[in-house]
Structures are given as structure tokens and as C-alpha cells.
């Protein structure tokens, strides 16, 4: 999905390390993740946070991802990407405990 001409397969230990980094980042970013989720719950009252996040998310995807991929196009589709973004944020917010590494790993294996 990323803009890269080299197709590298991720190794198991690298995959584990990425999960650990993601869990630590989620712990640190939990208040922000929560605010984004809350903003989407009542868009009429507080849409600024969600709109800013969504705008930046799309900017980053356009900048770093391969736009020719169908999966990337799905991420950019406004009608479909809401569910993907919310479920991804929820997954991160459920994985901030001490057992977060194992939880996130299980979520990813089941994905």
C-alpha cells in the first residue's frame, strides 16, 4: 500500500516490534484518540476535531501511499472510510492496558 518500488516482507520480530511501538504510542495518544471519537459522536456540536483529523489523515495517505491501489482508494473514499477510521481508533483505544500488546496482536491476527 505504501509508495515503494521494493516489496519487502515484514519479519515476525519486526511485526512484534511495530505492535509494541503502536501500543506505547496509543497509551500516550489516548486523550487525543478519545477526543476524535467523541467529536464524531456529536458532529453537530463539535465537528472541528473530527474534520481536522480526517483532513490530515487524507493528506498523509495521498502523500505516502500508492494511490493506484484499490485499498488506498477505499481509504480515501469519504463514504467508506468513516467506518475504517473509527474501528482503527477503537482498536487502538482498547489496547492501552498492560496487556495491550497481546490484545492488539490478537485483533490483528483476527482481522
Amino acid at each position, binding site marked *: 500500500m505504501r509508495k515503494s518500488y521494493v516489496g519487502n516482507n515484514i519479519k515476525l520480530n519486526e511485526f512484534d516490534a511495530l505492535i509494541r511501538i503502536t501500543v506505547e504510542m496509543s497509551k500516550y495518544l*489516548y*486523550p487525543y*484518540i*478519545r*477526543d476524535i*471519537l*467523541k467529536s*464524531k*459522536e*456529536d458532529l453537530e456540536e463539535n465537528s472541528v476535531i473530527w474534520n481536522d483529523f480526517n483532513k490530515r489523515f487524507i493528506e498523509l495517505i495521498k502523500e505516502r501511499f500508492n494511490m493506484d491501489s484499490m485499498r488506498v482508494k477505499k481509504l480515501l473514499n469519504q463514504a467508506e472510510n*468513516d*467506518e475504517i477510521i*473509527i*474501528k482503527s*481508533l*477503537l*482498536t487502538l*483505544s*482498547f489496547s*492501552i*492496558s*498492560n*496487556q495491550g500488546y*497481546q*490484545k492488539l496482536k*490478537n*485483533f490483528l*491476527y*483476527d*482481522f
Partner: protein
Amino acid sequence: MQNKLSFHQSSVSLEIIGLPDYSNNENKDQISIISQWKLTIIDKPLIEGKMEHLWPIMNAFYIYSNLLIKNEIPLFESKLIDIKADNLHIHNIVLKSSKPNVKPLILKIGNSLLSDTINCFDQLNDSPKVRIKKTNLPYNFSKKFRYGLNNKVKFFNFFIPPFIAICSLILFSSSFIYFYNPFENIENKEIINPE
């Protein structure tokens, strides 16, 4: 004197009240026998109950959150608690009382409060001060199951490439059968060796 432990996450707090099990030589500040628990969600009615209600409710939240993420139908129903999704952002919780003639308590919570609640339960699970036999929690997979997941991935990585190679070989070689006519070969041999 009962011990009191609190777990907080943003708008949700969970309070556990109970006693240590002195017959197991436990410390004074531990809780092994829960007499009461209270789940406080800001702007929502207080949820409280006894020990036997806590684990089924925690299980319900864990199972529901798992279903929500795995793209399955987010619906959990039991004698004690029902949780279903109104939409992608709002979750409807129905808490049924074990006492007769008591109306069920209905709560609507958003994704932010759901994740706060799950994190409070996680803190309770992680706490060394609360020693409760934790059963049937979906994240406490047995070692066998955990290794099963890894083995599954390794098994597929190991066997799928040769399997695809063999299949494609059979497919290609079978297509060549159409170009080969055994009768034509016999006729050619007869022409070469007229005897």
C-alpha cells in the same frame, strides 16, 4: 474495615470494595472477596452490584467490543445485560435487575465512553491488589490458542507456495494434452517403418 480500590479512565471510574482473604496470608490492602462494586459514568446513572454480577458484565463488554472491531454483528444478549449498537457511534446497554418488578436500566453510551469503560476493566484485570479468579475473559487466551495462531501463520507460509507451484504445474501440463494427438504419432511411425 473493608478495602476500597478505584480505577479511573477519563469519564469513567470503577470502585471495588471488599476484603483480603486472610486464610491465604494475604496483605491487608488486597481484595479477594468483593462485597460491592460501582461503575460511575459521567452524566449516566450509577451502576452497582455484587461480585457475581461483575464478571458477567465485564465479559459482556469485552465480547461486545471484540465483535464491534471484527466486523461481526455487534450484539450481546444475556440474562443480566444486553448490548447492541444503535449505529457506528452509539451503543445501547440494557442492565436487567435480578430482583423481580424492577425495570431494566437503559443506557446509551458513545465510543469514547465504551473505550473508557473497557480501559477501567483492563486496569482491574491488571491490578495486583485484586485477586479474583478470572475466567472466560476473551483476551485471556490459553497458551495453546496463542501458539495456535502463530503456528497457523507459519503453517500457511510453509505449505502454500509449494502447493500453488504443484497446482500450476498440473494446470499447465494438462493444457498440453490438447496439443498432443497419440494417433497422429502412431501414423507417423508407420510411415517411417512401413513393415
